[in-house]
């Protein structure tokens, strides 16, 4: 059985700034990281590998420099890394992206049966949480989103039971394979690469699949296949706070004022 993990290279959003004139992200000199949720997806796939000996493939759609992200996945122990990269894929929204990823997974499925696809619940740059469900829909897999625990997994029966983390409650669901999971951070603690694995991954090759391999209709991918248009990106203006009282001269008084303020705004219940 093959386990597929979808990962994305994202700009380190703590370092991203928005150009006030063009309303676009200033990406120059900003380092890229693996989307944090995807690191948990990767970890869960590797745990399945450790437990059952499944092979794990990591796929990512992105520009050629996204290879670095897949190298990190190789350093952690994935067996195969595939970069879906083509100018024709560029400018894709979540719909066009999920078409490309689905096709790639289907292609992998023809070589070895895919049982589980794991994605992060969302990326920290787009924050849509749509690509995972989009892939599941296109492939006809059962989608289990917001997974924070794999309760039971029986590869022989072909069934999986997971716990979903919802607002204020948990939900335990069971589904037959193949499934697509989107995962939250609470699921696991991602491993750290060993040095021998890092050194191996530096030599390992990342396969690059373009649309020549996938043969998707040009009108369904990239900018052309994307119905979503971003009209404006901006940083919300943050109101400057105020200093309440004098914490140095009169800490008790300042604390009192602060509590009153919080209560008056319904932020604190006495």
């Amino acid at each position, binding site marked *: 059985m093959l386990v597929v993990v979808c990962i994305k290279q994202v700009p380190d959003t703590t370092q991203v700034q928005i150009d006030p004139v063009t309303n676009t992200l200033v990406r120059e000199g900003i*380092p890229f990281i693996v989307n944090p949720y995807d690191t948990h997806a990767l970890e869960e796939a590797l745990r399945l590998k450790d437990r059952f000996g499944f092979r794990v493939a990591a796929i990512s759609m992105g520009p050629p420099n996204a290879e670095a992200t897949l190298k990190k996945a190789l350093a952690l122990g994935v067996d195969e890394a595939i970069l879906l990269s083509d100018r024709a894929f560029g400018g894709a929204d979540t719909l066009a992206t999920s078409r490309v990823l689905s096709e790639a997974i289907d292609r992998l499925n023809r070589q070895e049966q895919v049982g589980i696809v794991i994605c992060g619940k969302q990326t920290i740059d787009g924050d849509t949480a749509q690509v995972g469900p989009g892939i599941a829909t296109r492939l006809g897999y059962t989608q289990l989103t917001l997974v924070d625990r794999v309760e039971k997994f029986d590869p022989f029966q072909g069934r999986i039971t997971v716990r979903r983390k919802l607002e204020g409650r948990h939900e335990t669901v069971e589904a037959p394979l193949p499934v697509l999971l989107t995962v939250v951070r609470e699921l696991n603690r991602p491993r750290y690469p060993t*040095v021998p694995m890092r*050194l191996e991954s530096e030599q390992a090759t990342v396969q690059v699949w373009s649309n020549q391999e996938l043969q998707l209709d040009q009108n369904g991918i990239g900018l052309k296949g994307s119905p979503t248009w971003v009209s404006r990106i901006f940083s919300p203006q943050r109101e400057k706070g105020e200093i309440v009282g004098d914490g140095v001269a009169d800490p008790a008084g300042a604390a009192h004022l602060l509590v009153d303020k919080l209560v008056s705004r319904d932020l604190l219940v006495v």
Partner: protein
Amino acid sequence: MSPNPQLFLLLLILSASAFVIGCYRRFSLVALGRPEDRLDAPGTRFARMLRLAFGQQRVLGKPFGMNHFVIFWSFIILAAANAEFVVSGVLPQAGLAALPAPLQHALLFLFDLVSLAALVCVLIAFARRLFFAEPSLSSDYVKARSPEALLILSLIAVLMLAYFGLHAARIMIGMEDPTAMPVSAAIAALMAAPLATDPTAVATWSWWLHALALLSFLAYLPQSKHMHILTAIPNCFFAGLERPNTQPREEFARGMRFGAGRVDEFTWKDLFDSFSCTECGRCQEACPAAATGKSLNPRSIIHALKTNLLANGSSLRAGETPTLPLLANASDTGPGEGSAGDDAIWACTTCGACMNACPVLIEHMPKIVKMRRHLVQMRASFPEELSAFFENVEARSNPWGIAPTERTKWHANLPVRPFEQGKTEYLLYVGCAGAFDARQKQVTVALATILDAAGVSWGTLGKEERCCGDSLRRLGNEFVFDRTARDNVKLLAERGVKKIVTQCPHCFTTLKNDYRQYGMELEVVHHSELLAGLLASGQLELKQRVAQFGTVLFHDSCYLGRHNDVYSAPRQVLATTTGASPAEFVRNAERSFCCGAGGGRMWQEEQEGERINLNRVKEALQQKPDTICVSCPYCLTMMEDGLKDLQGGAVRVKDLAEVVVEGLRA
């Protein structure tokens, strides 16, 4: 002179064989270690060996040190007496009797007095262990192993008593001159009445007792911790000349193993160390982790190496996998005698107190770092909290994972210039704490203000400055440290930096000592040294004597003091600034006690035992200070946290620069 040369020769051959086989077995195990050059600078090494081994410098620094000094020198002198005993035991015509009478007389006189001194010291050593055991001698560890110490002491005592018995009897028989041997003569006088009947029998019995004690000692020596009498002296010669914090580099290539996860992945010198330890416990006494109830005991680490090597020796020689693991996982039943526990390995603050205390220069800390290197690099196994630390340093080059663009925020309200090649004298290496930690940023501003007031030409690397990698290296993440160091050395060379001033002893030692391994030879000073120089030369003029901090107690940072020998500079600065020498901790200067944050402990929880910073702050409060003065960002955090926990009242913690800057106010 021997009652039975043939029998003695037979026993001698048996005993010498046991000795040779025992030594061969151990030294051939040492040869299983990885190669390492310890023969450079032989002159320096030899001088140090004379001072520490023959001069017993560190032994004498402790109570009962003189006792050991006397036993040590008695052994050396009596080695000649025992050699004579053995030779004349086999060849009765040889020995002292063959020497000219005045020389024979002088030697007998010397041996007689030295034997008495040794006997007295052995009795004192007995009494110390049995009746006046100090805390370091009453631990479970020592209790478990004290029979061995007592057995060795008993053998020495028997040797001396037999020596006196033999010579007293010979004096009674008239074979030896009583004027040459005053102690033996006195004993002869005492024995005269009860044993007058048969002094010859006494001589024979004493001779055999002496012979058996000597031969037993010889045979037993390599099996025991008393092996140190053979290894301690060369160990002082071979000990590292580098600062104790500077671990050797690792080369990274595919197919290699990193760190020490098996006993044969240590160097031969590491293994030799384990046979040089006599388990005196000075390291344990000095260790902040051991003192606060952590699993770590540096003495046990060294002992574990030895027992692991002995247990795995034959399988290692046969090229097989060792049976006893060196590192015991937490999930295992617990570390056996020959294994080091994970908890112990992660508890080390790399403060270097153990190495500073060891009389025979055993290198505990590098071994702990080597085992950490294995855990991090080969197994990716380390305390959970370190995941975030490693990721943050690697991705954003600071421990907190704050955006590198915020590195210059500390000088939002100050005119700070970038370092310019040829124009700027000093690069101020701000350091991660100095740039990101809210409290330490105040210190950076104070230091910048002082440098400007003194007219020092300085600049920074701005947002391009990166983490120096100190914690990475001490935590065993050598792979990431290696990349960090290469990048930093390249950047500093490109910018034409020649002189660096740091406010953090960890940046200081890393740039100064660790980066030398990467070919960087820069003048690196800690701000305490620079400020001392500026004050002494008059370049920095204070407008007023600083009195508002009251009694100032100075806390030595391990990485400034013990690791770099900077003790007087900060004290001079405080004396000039406040008009009085600072108050001192009981444990100060090279015996200073760690704040608990070095060695990457800053980024880990401290759940086991008492918190190290509380131990130190309690010690501080005994001195009734108004201010605790530090010279390190980690110490600053740890002291302030400790004071909060202990409700330290009005006691403040200030960095040296914050004290000095007050003197600039008119």
